[in-house]
């Protein structure tokens, strides 16, 4: 594998992200999102396995309420499809695509996987409690000066810093 190119200047990458967000505002009048699209996929699964169950649950019903009733017929689902393409393009250009487990040297792969899965569950829960994640709340709501989004952002950083010590062995 070739040596990966260095990452972009964080401020330039930030301006790039900000302009993409601005484009979403100008084109659609809405911001970006990620956890919303993941919820659509979960709803698709639940609806396929137990349609009656999905219909009676107000949470799934919201994601079923697309123009044609298919949860994947949603703006965020198409957007996250683009995210996958864009991430792959950037990774290929920079030589960063390749099968690997990202972790520090002091933990085993299986420990890292347990943490990754557990962290995923908490993020799924947290993002749904807060009606959005770092994309939908922090970035989008942050730029729109939404009070709840700034509260969410502060809570994320506060709790992450508070418990970071517990997970320090994972990374270095």
């Amino acid at each position: 594998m070739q040596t990966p190119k260095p990452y972009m200047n964080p401020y330039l990458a930030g301006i790039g992200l900000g302009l993409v967000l601005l484009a979403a505002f100008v084109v659609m009048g809405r911001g970006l999102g990620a956890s919303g699209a993941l919820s659509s996929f979960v709803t698709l699964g639940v609806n396929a396995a137990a349609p009656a169950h999905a219909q009676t649950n107000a949470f799934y019903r919201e994601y079923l309420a697309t123009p044609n009733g298919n949860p994947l017929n949603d703006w965020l689902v198409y957007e996250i499809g683009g995210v996958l393409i864009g991430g792959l393009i950037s990774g290929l250009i920079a030589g960063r695509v390749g099968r690997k487990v990202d972790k520090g040297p002091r933990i085993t792969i299986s420990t890292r996987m347990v943490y990754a899965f557990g962290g995923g569950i908490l993020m799924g829960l947290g993002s749904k409690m807060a009606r959005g994640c770092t994309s939908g709340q922090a970035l989008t709501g942050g730029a729109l000066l939404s009070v709840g989004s700034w509260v969410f952002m502060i809570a994320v950083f506060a709790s992450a810093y508070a418990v970071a010590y517990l997970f320090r062995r994972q990374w270095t």
Partner: protein
Amino acid sequence: MNAPLYQFGLFGNDTALLLAVPIGIGFGFFLEQAGFGSSVKLAQQFYLRDLTVFKVMFTAIVTAMLGLFWLSWIGFVDLSLVRVLPTYLVPQFAGGLVFGVGFVMGGYCPGTCCVAAVTGKMDGWINLTGMFAGIFLFGELFPFLEAWYSSTPMGEITLSQVFNLSQGTTVLLIVLAAIAGFYGAEKLEARFRSVGS
């Protein structure tokens, strides 16, 4: 005065879905370029060794915020049509706390784990699976959480309204805080780097 283009009826729902793809491509591209496809890089934020997450996030917020302000001022964007996310104070604060633990534990957030997964990070795939499980769990618990989920509603409220400042003044304060934060971040990184090596 003809943006947001979708609200002014320049195109329909199908075109909107197609336009989501290039916007998503830009989003994913810059996330990966910033280094957010790597959990090790992302997690360094919480050990103060690499503050890229803070820098990228706040630069993006400042850029979009200033852009919206000025596009509205020249009369291009009708701000009243860009919907401010409604605030539910307690669930959003609690959600942030849970999310923060998940962030430092898993090393990704929902958007970045997609980028990690597509560039071949196996922990990204597992993280994504965990997120599906978490959302499913929330969905199953939703009937019990519904009342709490809708508690402390404050409507589409903005920081300007809370602090009784004009939008421009709020924008200035955030930009000042961001620049001060960037300055501090650069100093902090330099110090941790010299201590570490």
